[in-house]
């Protein structure tokens, strides 16, 4: 009769008791760690409801968690991660069975249906192999076929080796036990053969290894069996307890993090009550504990895989901000002072925790440099890339909110833009009276909503600051007006009643200015009964569509390319003119990644005669920012290479005659880069190209 490891005694100490003590220690320690982590998660921070739309949340968890949707963008990593992840899912049951066996020697899991276990064993045997293969592939990724995004990590190697050890010890214990059982079996050949046939069928890997072990003596086999078994058990307990201390906490937090992920439009920033904040005297976040629980769960979950930085414009141009580094530093701030934070929050202690918090390394300027905070263009590549649903822009802008609203510490150039928005309704501080002047040269009248009076207006043309003041932007505004006019769409503008949407103010942290502008604009539009809006500025588009609903402004908002593409599709305008030319298309972040509009500009470009679209290597979801977003348009770029030049170099390398853009700020940035680098590829707005293709156009 083969005895199990817990049935043996060790230096007179019963195995079951030893096992029970180990299990108890592991559980106690884990419970303690977990409760500390949960306390850390829930202390401080504004309340946040992440339980709405539970079905959508479950779906996200299924799609991005269990089905690993984003992981396969890097097929190699996707493969080994899926091997390890599926291994964990399968072996969870195996681990439960082991624990059960440890406590109740000789017994199997009681709740499984008959015949299940044999089938499971077959899968388990396969999974031991695939998981081990996954570990080898993962180690190879870290040390042989490296990626820039991965930094050397002792933690990662340790965890991978631990997983490998789990597989090896599981297999070793199983095979030695199988060989031992065969050796100890009664001399009934028929019964033995039946057992061996069963083993060969249901645990082929273990069986073949056991055959190799069968030459060993029974005592050796028992030593291997017991040794592997205990090593496996100890490795499991160590593994589970080590997770919360390292970047591999994601094994536990990733699925919840996906479940609690952001369901609101990607481009929408959180609105907060300014008056309440003013009463409390705090704006934004200056201490790590003041992030919301979900924001802290993000910090727990970051696995430092670095996908977020692969197309990050600040990382690519050598600036101090990388999303991964940012998240790791936030977590560092949170973990380093975790004990003091929890003690102070619980009102425990002798004042030493308070003292520790007073003396701690400050979040802003200590853990995170101010330069890092201002570098972000909010292009959202990082959030698109993150496989576990971490958001970054919310944290960057929370820190900016603190710096602007509470400390009044921000790059001084931002003040010029703030003043302009506040006084003249545009960041350039140009006269508000000239806002409608762009329309004067058109061969047909462009009415303001006030002038239109009771006349039917199908759609409000929201021109935006660049479309109203910037020379090229004005040309694009005239192009859109012409296209609408040709299609017989009745439209009007707000003229001098329009003011900046406040996009840049909000993203630079000046929530007060943003809300003032938002309320004013919503009031103006509601006054005219506006229901539909078309705009060619993706920043206006995002703000109007996603952020104004918080201020009572619910409108149907279309981007210029969406509306014009539809008008072409419906045959209301025909695009007939055009010389052959090859064209790259540069996706604006606030149209693409923030709002998922990738096809409309391409549909329109493909409808223009002569244009041959040649996609950029980094396009659509992977498009690289021009450098203007997040209010960066209004700031100096003093560190590293220029984002606009880096992007322009990619466009030049694509070798097309021209590049199409769909955002006035991309236009300015790429136009500047062309001058700065004495480049060749000229930028055109998609609407300019469309207007030029009209049967008759004024040039």
């Amino acid at each position, binding site marked *: 009769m083969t005895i199990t490891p817990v049935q043996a005694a060790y230096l007179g100490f019963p195995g079951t008791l030893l096992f029970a003590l180990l299990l108890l220690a592991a559980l106690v320690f884990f419970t303690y760690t977990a409760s500390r982590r949960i306390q850390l998660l829930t202390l401080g921070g504004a309340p946040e409801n992440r339980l709405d739309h539970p079905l959508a949340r479950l779906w996200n968890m299924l799609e991005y968690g269990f089905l690993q949707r984003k992981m396969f963008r890097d097929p190699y990593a996707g493969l080994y991660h899926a091997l390890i992840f599926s291994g964990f899912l399968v072996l969870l049951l195996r681990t439960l069975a082991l624990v059960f066996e440890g406590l109740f020697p000789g017994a199997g899991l009681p709740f499984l249906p008959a015949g299940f276990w044999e089938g499971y064993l077959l899968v388990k045997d396969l999974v031991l192999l695939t998981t081990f293969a996954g570990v080898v592939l993962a180690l190879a990724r870290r040390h042989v076929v490296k990626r820039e995004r991965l930094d050397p990590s002792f933690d990662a190697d340790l965890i991978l080796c631990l997983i490998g050890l789990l597989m090896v010890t599981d297999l070793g214990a199983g095979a030695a036990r199988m060989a031992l059982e065969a050796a100890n079996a009664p001399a009934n050949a028929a019964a033995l053969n039946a057992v061996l046939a069963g083993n060969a069928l249901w645990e082929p890997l273990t069986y073949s290894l056991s055959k190799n072990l069968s030459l060993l003596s029974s005592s050796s086999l028992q030593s291997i069996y017991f040794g592997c078994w205990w090593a496996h058990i100890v490795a499991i307990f160590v593994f589970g307890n080590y997770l919360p201390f390292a970047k591999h906490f994601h094994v536990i937090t990733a699925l919840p993090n996906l479940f609690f992920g952001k369901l609101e439009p990607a481009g929408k920033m959180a609105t907060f009550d300014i008056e309440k904040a003013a009463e409390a005297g705090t704006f934004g976040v200056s201490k790590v504990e003041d992030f919301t629980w979900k924001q802290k769960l993000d910090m727990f979950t970051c696995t430092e895989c670095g996908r977020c930085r692969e197309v990050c414009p600040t990382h690519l141009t050598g600036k101090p901000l990388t999303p991964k580094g940012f998240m790791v530093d936030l977590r560092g701030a949170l973990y380093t002072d975790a004990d003091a934070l929890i003690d102070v929050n619980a009102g425990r202690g002798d004042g030493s925790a308070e003292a520790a918090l007073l003396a701690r390394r400050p979040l802003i300027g200590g853990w995170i440099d101010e330069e890092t905070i201002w570098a972000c263009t909010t292009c959202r590549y990082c959030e698109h890339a993150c496989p576990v649903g971490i958001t970054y822009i919310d944290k960057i802008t929370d820190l900016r909110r603190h710096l602007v609203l509470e400390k009044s510490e921000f790059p001084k*150039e931002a003040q*010029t*833009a703030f003043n*302009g928005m506040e*006084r003249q309704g545009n*960041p*350039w*501080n*140009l006269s508000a009276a000239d806002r409608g002047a762009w329309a004067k040269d058109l061969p047909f009248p462009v009415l303001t909503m006030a002038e239109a009076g009771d006349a039917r207006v199908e759609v409000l043309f929201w021109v935006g600051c*660049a479309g109203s*003041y*910037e*020379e090229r932007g004005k040309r694009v505004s005239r192009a859109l007006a012409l296209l609408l006019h040709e299609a017989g769409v009745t439209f009007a503008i707000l003229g001098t009643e329009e003011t900046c949407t406040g996009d840049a103010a909000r993203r630079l942290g000046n929530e007060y200015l943003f809300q003032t502008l938002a309320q004013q604009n919503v009031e103006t539009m509601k006054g005219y009964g506006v229901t539909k809006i078309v705009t060619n500025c993706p920043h206006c588009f995002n703000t109007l569509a996603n952020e104004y609903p918080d201020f009572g402004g619910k409108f149907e908002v279309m981007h210029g390319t969406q509306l014009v593409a539809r008008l072409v599709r419906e045959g209301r305008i025909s695009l007939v003119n055009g010389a052959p030319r090859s064209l790259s298309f540069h996706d604006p972040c606030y149209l693409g990644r923030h709002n998922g509009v990738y096809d409309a500009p391409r549909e329109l470009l493909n409808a223009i005669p002569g244009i041959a679209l040649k996609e950029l290597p980094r396009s659509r979801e992977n498009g690289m920012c021009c450098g203007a977003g997040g209010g960066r348009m*209004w*700031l*100096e770029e003093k560190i590293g290479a*220029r984002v606009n030049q880096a992007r322009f170099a990619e466009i030049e390398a694509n070798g097309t005659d021209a590049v199409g853009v769909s955002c006035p700020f991309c236009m*300015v940035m790429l136009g*500047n880069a062309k*001058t*700065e680098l004495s480049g060749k590829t000229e930028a055109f707005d998609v609407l300019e190209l469309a207007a030029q293709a009209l049967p008759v156009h004024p040039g």
Partner: protein
Amino acid sequence: MSNVLVFIEQRDGKIRKSSLEALTLGHSLSKKTNGSLGAVIAGSGISSLVGELAAYGASKVFVADRPELALFSSEGYTAALDAAAAAFGPSIVLASATAMGRDVAPRFAARRGVSVLSDMMTLDVQNGRLVGERPVYSGKARVVVTPAPDAAIQVATPRPNVFPASKADVAGAGEVVTLDLGTLKIRAKVVKVEAAEAGEIDVAEADKIVSGGRGIKGPESWPVLRALCQELGAALGASRAAVDAGWIGHEHQVGQTGKVVSPSLYIACGVSGAIQHLAGMGSSKVIVAINKDPEAPIFKVATYGIVGDLFQIVPAMTEAAKKMKA
């Protein structure tokens, strides 16, 4: 009868032009009311400057000449003004609305419990009361202001470059009164003054600016523009493109993310006029644009536009300016 006392700034032993403007203004106000004109000057080794102040009509010059006043001190210079006012008994005190004047005048006013008419574009005296205009809303409107009727002393800071500076028809007596300030308590000391680039006028303060963009082709062309600056007494500006290219320091940058300026004359040489640049200089009084490209947006805001090669036009302008001065 209103006695007028004017706070005079000197730097490196030279009286600043804006102070002479204030003194000229003070002279006309004192003449109007048959009062007398006093001037107060603080510094170290400055007694030689009294003659110039008398030439502008000062009948009394209060001098605080002490080593510890060599560099500007808010407390020390205010103490000098305070002591001079106590001795002279003026009903009007003027200080130019420069960085120094805007520091000293409010301190003095606060000590006397009166207000300051700040940054005045016009200033007159009617029935013994100061009255004048100051700009609001970025110069889009002006408000007329006058001190409270019960103010024993009326304090005002006239804006530099707005009022003319001219010597009096008849020089003042220039009687020197040495101020005894006793033991000065100076808590905030100016340790040293570091000029950004010696000898150059700061674009943010300049009344005239000659500015270069990418059209100047490279840093070797700055002497062409600097020669014109020299003749006009103008500061050298630059577009972001020129600064980004590394042709000149950021302190010269005019525009949205550089300095926002509104001089009375802005000469843009080889500047295309991107909106970032226009945002920084669009409110200049007279804009002269020199550019090869007739389509350049700079011409849309220019008062005078010259389409042509700046390397011919700028030297010609420099020559013309030289001739006019000769």
